[in-house]
């Protein structure tokens, strides 16, 4: 089980050509993420972390290369198949939280289960359970605008995990949080990782995340830094 591949990316190249000037965001990455990892991709701004995460989750398509996600080749999936696959297998945590402002905390967490067609009773119990885990059970009926940044990011974590995805992607999840809140949030995610065996992949340049990651992958100028091979910590 430990060697089960969640992500298997081969020869990934991503070139943006929006303004007519080609920008090489990712320059040929081979990468494998196995089940249960709690890995952080680190690197300076502009090193291609977010682009790489977008490509390996099917949010963007690679210019070259192929991505296998939980045994499925992303480029062979139709738009709806890809949507359904993300819905059922990937949880996202964004830097800017990106909660739906018109939905309450409870409804935000419930949303993805509605897409999955989870029965109402089960949805409710899973929402309550997840909000308890992130310490926001008392805030269920609040709108996101009435929560602090840290609370909103905890809701985002609950939303990402409530559907029991095989992979949680967190793109700079602590960028807008203070160090204390960031530490608490990372501790909570690490605990969830250990409790559930869920795989986490972060992009960050926050030391707080790096310190708590079980594995670090360094990305420089769109490539895995060969001078800094992936390190594993326990």
């Amino acid at each position, binding site marked *: 089980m430990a060697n089960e591949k969640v992500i298997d990316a081969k020869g990934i190249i991503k070139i943006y050509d929006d303004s007519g000037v080609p920008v090489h965001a990712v320059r040929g990455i081979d990468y494998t993420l196995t089940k249960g990892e709690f890995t952080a991709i680190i690197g300076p701004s502009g090193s291609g972390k977010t682009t790489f995460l*977008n490509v390996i989750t099917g*949010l963007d398509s690679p210019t070259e290369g192929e991505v296998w996600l939980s045994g499925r080749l992303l480029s062979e999936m139709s738009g709806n198949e890809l949507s*359904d696959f993300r*819905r059922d297998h990937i949880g996202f945590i964004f830097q800017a939280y990106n909660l739906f402002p*018109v*939905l309450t905390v409870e409804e935000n967490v419930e949303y993805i289960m509605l897409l999955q067609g989870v029965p109402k009773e089960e949805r409710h119990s899973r929402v309550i359970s997840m909000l308890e885990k992130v310490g926001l059970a008392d805030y269920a009926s609040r709108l996101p605008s009435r929560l602090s940044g840290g609370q909103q990011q905890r809701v985002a974590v609950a939303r990402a995990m409530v559907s029991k995805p095989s992979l949680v992607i967190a793109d700079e999840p602590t960028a807008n949080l203070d160090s204390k809140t960031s530490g608490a949030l990372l501790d909570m995610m690490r605990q969830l990782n250990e409790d559930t065996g869920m795989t986490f992949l972060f992009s960050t340049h926050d030391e707080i995340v790096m310190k708590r990651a079980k594995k670090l992958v360094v990305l420089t100028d769109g490539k895995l830094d060969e001078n800094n091979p992936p390190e594993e910590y326990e």
Partner: protein
Amino acid sequence: MLLKLAWRNIFRQKRRTFLTLMTMAGGFVLSSLSIGWMNGSYSSIILFFTNNRTGQIQVHHEGYLADPSIYSTIDNYEQVGLLLDSFPDVRTWAPRIYTGALLAIKPDAAAGQASNAFSNSAAASVIGIDPTREQEATGFSDQITEGEMLTASYADTSLSSTGQILLGKELAITLDASVGDSLILLSQAANGAVADKRYVVVGIVSTGNTQIDRRTSYITLLDAQNLFALEGEAHEIAILSRNFNEVDNLNTAISERLIGRNLETNSWKVFAKEFYNGMKADESSLEVMIFIIVLVAAMGVLNTVLMMVLERRREFGVMKAMGTRPGFIVRMIMLEANIMGFISILLGSIISTAGLLFLSKHGIVLDPPLDYGGTVFREMVASISPDCYWIPAVCVILTASIVSWIPALKAAHTKPAKALRTV
């Protein structure tokens, strides 16, 4: 969830939503009032036209409408009348004889001076009417502005006696005739004989249509039958229906009962073709007006929906990243536009009902009066009908759906990675 999301999204920008609702409701109200107003006007004009003059259905000898001839008559019209009386929807009917004649007047005849010269003469159409039935059908005496109605009991129809005649107002002016003057009617009877008789002007008629009043005179049906050798015959039977909306069905029913008699029945849409076509042309102008109103409202809705989509681009990116299918996003945006449509229909219906009720009771005095095909209308009122609601409602919903379709597709095909990069 879809409904909840759509409903709450609408009220994210309350001021903009309010303005959009007002635009859509305004379009609804304007369309609704226009339809009510036009329907009311049409109804007034059509009812006035048919009730006061033509009737809603007419019976003629086959081919008479296409080629009116003194010889194309309804034989034994009273028997046809008895058959018409058996239809519950027939309120009443009136027989008529139509022919032409030369009317000549000696200007000094009234003054008692002897002269053989007829200084004033005019070609006129002569309509033979049954005074009692005509009064019952068209309220004919209401159109007599001077003098009195033809005497229903007047029985002396001999050619040597002096008959009674009514002149159209403008015809009386042409002849310089007034009530009490006598004139000579000269024509040809159906049997080829010369038809001439002296008449005394008993009244002046003003139908409200100057073209008709300039060339029409009226004598009693019995007198006309005798003068033109058409005993027991008539050229036309005008039928008044109890229910205007059922005229076409009544026309068909009567038609079926008259098969084999060489008679034809037509509704006002056929025998008053020009009038009916005029009405249809006016309806087209109403359609153009509603189209323009809808177009203006559509621009407002399009602007709002586009703004909504552009502002929420990042949100759509998040939705898609989480696995929301494009169809869900399309449905959500179209639902938002349609919810606004339904609210505006509700608001618009309340405002329209108040406006239509006011206009249907008080109407608007036309100053100057409206001359429609020679018929003058001094006041118009609106009428409230289902058309006033369902047509604008369908327009609003269709507009909301069509206008939101493109922004919805745009939102549904948001590229998550790109949208998530937007601030």
